[in-house]
């Protein structure tokens, strides 16, 4: 590939690519994101290629592994264009039928399309599926349309047009102004206005300047940035080059965690292809602007997502936050002005430049513009990535897009913002999703983790879980975070294990105040949030654990007891056979009894007891009734003759 020397040459290449593609009559897009790959997407892709070849359709049908479209719950996902037929949970065995029915006959394989779980009504087209219908997918929507390993795909959907516009039609100041006008706020956590950050760097003294992609996504259950980097790496590069041009930086970094091998692979490949096309390197497209990008792999520390810790790690030192009171956009990497933005923030930049700030601000609320990608996980029917306009309610995300709570269970809370975020109760489900709205409710936007919890989740245990995560991920430099989280975890563990004492809540509150007020970085300052938000909305659960030694969700093992109800037990032997510890005494016709000395509370008996008997009971905060006397344990089965 010869390097492109002007915008006209880029446009010519784009037109040639599009023209060459007109020859194909159909396109098969198979999600090749990490989730679908784990469920066998690569075999599905291979099966499509083989089947299409054996049918002699190779020239007519373009088969590609694409980025993740988000409906991970039902992967591997296949979309057939131009009809946009979406097939879910496709296996290699389904492929011949799809090729015969859809590609050749233009029909639909009904059994593989989305069907409403209640009405049974099917939705063959992607845009008709409720999961997608209520979304606004301006950023992630392109993933399924492109092969992230092929720059031509990105060019075919208009890629790098934003860069051309910035380099050839706008001054750097105008680019900064456009981003400011769009009110794009950082998608990584704090929601700081990107335009202001850029302007600060542009105006700051010191050369060289740097632009950096924060791809150190580490929140449990969050994978938005991963999907973007894996699925559409050029969009992030394009944003980064535009950012470099705007602030006067000629070097960019992508700090990506090494636990994301596919993201690393795809972004390295994208850089290589962009360089070969003259979209990176010296004199980009003949504009006179030079820009290079280096990928730095993080070694797996959550704290390196914090801006100053990330920059310290980039410099080759231990990734610890800096104690200084200077903004990193003024004195950042190697003490130089450095703009650090999250993956999703950078991915929004080409869209804003291309379509204008006015277009962008049509989405969202007054103070939170655009869309936000959330990774919707936990006790939710449709696990996956959802991109929604700011201002949508939590209820719409969880029920209309997410399909509600599976298994007929009740909703209890939704945790947003990752380990530093908070849990919001049912009463706040109509809260509009926005940076300030979530913060006011005691949670935060964070990078977009959204964990749904049902009635069986213990909120004290949730707080304990996140504190456990944070004691491990704290860098350990400052006392309020290192020692504060250590003691908070100790106390929370004690509470969940029935050793809670009066005064524990107050002590936790005191530790929280010190961590919030005195910690060095945002990790420590926000570490108490999981506790503070669960206390604010679920204080009764804390009190029940401490005062009554009762876990209302019946989730904390040490506070739960299993027993077999003598009236209901039909001595069927199911639980007796399944108990891995031999803790159930009983025989055919002899009512079963759990020996508390042997029981490990694994709960298997509770799960396997046939629902028609429902004899195994799980209780918390009360004593189990005494087992029946030995002579009362024999069941005299009603004989058919009586």
């Amino acid at each position, binding site marked *: 590939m010869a390097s492109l020397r002007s915008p006209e040459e880029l446009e010519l290449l784009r037109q040639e690519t599009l023209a060459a593609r007109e020859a194909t009559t159909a396109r098969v897009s198979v999600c090749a994101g990490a989730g679908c790959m784990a469920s066998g997407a690569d075999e599905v892709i291979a099966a499509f290629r083989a089947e299409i070849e054996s049918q002699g359709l190779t020239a007519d049908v373009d088969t590609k592994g694409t980025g993740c479209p988000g409906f991970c719950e039902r992967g591997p996902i296949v979309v057939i264009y131009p009809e946009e037929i979406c097939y879910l949970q496709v296996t290699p065995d389904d492929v011949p039928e799809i090729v015969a029915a859809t590609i050749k006959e233009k029909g639909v394989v009904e059994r593989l399309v989305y069907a409403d779980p209640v009405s049974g009504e099917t939705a063959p087209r992607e845009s008709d599926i409720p999961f997608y219908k209520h979304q606004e997918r301006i950023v992630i929507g392109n993933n399924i349309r492109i092969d992230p390993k092929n720059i031509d795909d990105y060019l075919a959907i208009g890629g790098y047009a934003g860069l051309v516009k910035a380099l050839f039609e706008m001054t750097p100041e105008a680019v900064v102004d456009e981003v400011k006008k769009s009110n794009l706020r950082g998608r990584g956590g704090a929601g700081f206005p990107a335009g202001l950050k850029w302007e600060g760097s542009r105006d700051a003294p010191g050369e060289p300047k740097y632009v950096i992609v924060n791809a150190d996504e580490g929140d449990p259950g969050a994978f938005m940035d991963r999907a973007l980097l894996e699925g559409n790496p050029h969009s992030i590069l394009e944003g980064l080059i535009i950012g470099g041009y705007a602030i006067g930086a000629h070097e960019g970094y992508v700090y990506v965690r090494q636990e994301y091998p596919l993201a690393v692979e795809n972004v390295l490949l994208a850089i290589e292809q962009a360089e070969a096309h003259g979209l990176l390197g010296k004199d980009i497209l003949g504009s006179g602007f030079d820009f290079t990008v280096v990928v730095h792999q993080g070694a797996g*520390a959550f*704290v390196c997502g914090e801006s100053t810790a990330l920059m310290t790690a980039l410099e080759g030192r*231990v990734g610890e936050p800096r*104690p*200084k*009171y200077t903004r990193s956009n003024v004195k950042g990497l190697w003490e130089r002005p450095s703009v650090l933005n999250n993956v999703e923030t950078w991915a929004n930049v080409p869209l804003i430049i291309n379509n204008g700030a006015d277009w962008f601000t049509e989405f969202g609320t007054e103070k939170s513009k655009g869309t936000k990608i959330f990774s919707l996980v936990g006790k939710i029917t449709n696990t996956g990535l959802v991109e929604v306009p700011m201002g949508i309610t939590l209820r719409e995300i969880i029920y209309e897009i997410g399909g509600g709570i599976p298994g007929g269970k009740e909703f209890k809370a939704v945790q947003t913002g990752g380990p530093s975020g908070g849990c919001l109760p049912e009463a706040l489900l109509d809260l509009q999703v926005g940076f300030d709205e979530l913060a006011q409710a005691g949670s935060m936007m964070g990078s977009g983790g959204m964990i749904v919890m049902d009635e069986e989740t213990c909120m004290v245990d949730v707080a304990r879980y996140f504190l456990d995560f944070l*004691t*491990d*991920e*704290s*860098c*350990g*430099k*400052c*006392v*309020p975070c*290192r*020692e*504060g*989280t*250590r*003691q908070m975890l*100790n106390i929370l563990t004690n509470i969940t294990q029935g050793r809670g004492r009066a005064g524990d809540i107050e002590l936790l509150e*005191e*530790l929280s*105040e*010190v961590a919030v*007020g*005195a*910690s*060095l970085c945002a990790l420590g300052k926000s570490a108490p949030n999981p506790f503070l938000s669960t206390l604010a909305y679920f204080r009764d659960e804390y009190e029940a654990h401490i005062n009554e030694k009762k876990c209302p969700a019946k989730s904390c093992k040490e506070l739960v007891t299993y027993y077999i109800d003598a009236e209901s037990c039909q001595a069927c032997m199911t639980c007796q056979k399944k108990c891995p510890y031999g803790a159930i005494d009983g025989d055919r016709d002899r009512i079963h009894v759990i020996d508390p000395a042997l029981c490990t509370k694994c709960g298997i008996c509770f799960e396997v007891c046939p629902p028609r008997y429902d004899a195994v009971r799980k209780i918390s905060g009360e004593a189990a009734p005494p087992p029946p006397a030995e002579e009362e344990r024999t069941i005299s089965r009603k004989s058919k003759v009586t």
Partner: protein
Amino acid sequence: MSEVLLQIDGKEVRATEGASILEAACAADVFIPTLCHHEKLEPHGGCRLCMVEVEEHGRSKLVVSCIYPAANDQVVTTRSEQVDRIRKMILELLLAHAPDSETLLELGREYGADRNRFDKEASFCINCGLCVRYCAEVKKADAVGFLDRGTRRDISFIPEIAARECWQCKECFPLCPTSALQAAYVLVSSLAFPGARHQAPSEC
């Protein structure tokens, strides 16, 4: 260098531009407690004991004085209800590790810290990093360093370097606010170089 004029605990204080509030306070004989600060070392900002309240541009905030630069028109309060509460808690958290450290006990008496507030986890080291930073910044030897992160963070001597450098130096020993450092050194030298202790002392 130009000077700045600020107020610390009601006292008018002059400081050179670029000095920290802690340095300005020291020069004016206002005492601010610290555990990880040393005048020969780069500020660390780890113990957070030197936290003070600063009022500037009409807003009041908590900052660590060893790092926050002194500036014109600041009004600094080195003791307030909130500052004292934070210091008390920090001392209690550290006393769980080093319950017999004289430095901690003395500060604890000043701030009413209860050494038994938390379950003891007597590691003795409070991770102030004075030894690590002194060895790196002043001695340029890097014979002692931090290991691991978070609650597992610890100090350790690197046997190969320690065997070469430490017998002649030991300048970090008196810096330690607890007795942990010397113990760590004795441990590593006796484990890594059994017998070495009997040969070397004659030289120092």
